[in-house]
């Protein structure tokens, strides 16, 4: 298979190739992540967009090897600075998690231990990876809290998670994530559980930190507005597959895959002052256990041709900046 590569991948920190993650249900293997390839560039933001159940979170969890049976990575490679993470021992992997690749979870309400003080929890991450005394780590925790915009951090470090609002808790999680200067930060729907007014602040904070630390940000979201504002590269996922991959400008201005185009049509365009009717995509994403034959999107696709039912299209480069997994598009490009 022709591995699609993003343009200008001068300095790739994390490279995922043909990642397949399966869950075993009643003796049958069901693919949750299907041959996903990604390349995170240093200091850039890569977004994974897709509906619920499209495999976004599963991809992230696979990268960090956080999966628990019966879910497992079946094949593929995850290279962090050339080293295959899937080949590491669990012990070595624990050293990578949090220190080199950190993760910010979706739900800040439950991602913090309710019975431990905030400062202690951040210090705990530091102490897991750095040779630090408790006093040093807690001192650093206060600095981190200040950096992520928690007011009066000395006092707040002594508080428990339930003393914090949702936005503040997410700041705490971010402080914890950046505590060991990771090179990759995975943010899984970091603003979904937050008030709209707080979302922008958290996104700005993540963006600032990325620029400041030159870390790569892998942003998982279903919000195209967030993608447009934050991302450099975008991968669109559907039914466990990456169906289109491009830089953000190309994706928004010249989407090729019918699914991407449909997604963009059903996003609200605020600049459009006409009372435009939102166009939903007919049907629902397939159950991973009952994936349609051929292209997984063909039952909902407006452009489907008979061959779509047969051929599972590979992700192929259609230009220097764009890869698409759609035989209709690929054929049209070949004809042109």
């Amino acid at each position, binding site marked *: 298979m022709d591995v699609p590569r993003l343009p200008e991948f001068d300095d790739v920190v994390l490279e995922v190739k043909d990642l397949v993650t399966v869950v075993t249900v009643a003796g049958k293997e069901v693919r949750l992540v299907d041959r996903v390839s990604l390349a995170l560039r240093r200091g850039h933001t890569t977004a994974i967009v897709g509906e619920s159940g499209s495999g976004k979170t599963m991809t992230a969890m696979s990268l960090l090897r956080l999966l628990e049976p019966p879910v497992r990575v079946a094949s593929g490679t995850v290279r962090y600075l050339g080293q295959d993470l899937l080949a590491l021992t669990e012990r070595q992997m624990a050293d990578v*998690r949090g220190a080199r690749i950190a993760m910010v*979870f979706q739900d800040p309400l439950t991602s913090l231990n*309710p019975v431990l003080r905030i400062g202690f929890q951040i210090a705990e991450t530091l102490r897991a990876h750095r040779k630090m005394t408790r*006093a040093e780590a807690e001192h650093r*925790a206060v600095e981190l809290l200040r950096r992520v915009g928690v007011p009066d951090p000395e006092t707040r470090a002594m508080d428990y998670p339930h003393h914090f609002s949702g936005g503040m808790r997410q700041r705490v999680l971010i402080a914890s994530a950046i505590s060991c200067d990771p090179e990759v930060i995975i943010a899984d729907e970091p603003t979904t559980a937050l008030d709209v007014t707080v979302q922008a602040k958290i996104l700005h904070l993540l963006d600032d930190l990325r620029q400041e630390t030159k870390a790569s940000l892998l942003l998982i979201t279903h919000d195209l507005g967030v993608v447009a504002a934050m991302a450099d590269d975008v991968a669109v996922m559907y039914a466990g597959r990456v169906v289109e991959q491009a830089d953000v400008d190309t994706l928004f201005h010249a989407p090729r895959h019918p699914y991407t185009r449909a997604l963009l049509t059903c996003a609200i365009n605020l600049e459009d002052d006409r009372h435009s009717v939102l166009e939903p995509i007919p049907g629902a994403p397939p159950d991973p256990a009952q994936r349609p034959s051929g292209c997984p999107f063909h039952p909902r696709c407006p452009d489907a041709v008979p061959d779509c039912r047969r051929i599972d299209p590979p992700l192929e480069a259609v230009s220097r900046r764009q890869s698409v997994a759609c035989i209709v598009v690929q054929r049209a490009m070949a004809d042109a």
Partner: protein
Amino acid sequence: MQPDTAHAGTRSENRFRAESGAPALTAASRRGWRIAAFARDRAAFAAALFLLLIAGLALLAPFISPYDPAAADNLLRYAPPGTAGHLLGTDAQGRDMLSRLFWGGRVSLTVGVVPVMLASAVGLLLGLLAGTAGGWTDQVIMRTLDVLFAFPMVLLAIAIAGVLRPGLWTEIIAIAVVLIPYVGRLARTATLSVASMPFIEAARAAGATRTALLLRYVTPGVLPPLLVYATTLIGLMIVVGSGLSFLGLGVQPPASDWGAMVSEGRVVLRRAPHATVLPGLVIVVVSLAFSFLGDGLRDALDPRSRRR
């Protein structure tokens, strides 16, 4: 969210507020602060003081008992409380009730506390193991405990105590074995519920090893409910221990615990009710105190329940 009111009392102990870069307050102050929270709970605090007093009296029994607890005075039987020289009267054999209560406390408290501690340690280990390992390990441990569970608590204790030679240690071992399934099951349930919390996954994603997760994240979440449960069990086990003595499977005469005193006094209930009622009251009050202590500990250990 009311951080200001909720934490007005803790500001002075803020170990994060060290300008020198060396936060001074450590585990000791954290403990001190929890004790302070606990002391605010009047009932629990009173219960703790009361239990300390009782334990002190039992411990000092050889020095403060006015009489030998086994010395019978045949001329002064059934003496009611208030009799000169015998503050709480004497029993059917003319033995001093006060001295017997002091000495009986040593046995009763030992039988209440030691088996619960043993069972808690074993139960915690088994519960953690079953809850985190899952699969076969879990099945083997839990099904074994289920077998123990199937027997009524006291009946099993009687069986164990009956097989071994009656005595204090037999009683302790019998009660400990009986309690292991109860504690183990609680520990396993608590382990499962804590282990499935998203913050555990978050901690894993932050690089915590399995051992660190177990020791620093799961166990601290399992300990508070276990401690609370154990505390209430102590009260209950004093009663169960008394029951075993009552049946003659515990400490042997002339040594006795509070339960044995109730048992002996029962025969002369009409003639000298105090010989039964006094040790019975002591059992009730001490058991209640352990319950209050358990409730207070639960509130003090859970930071979310602190609302004052």
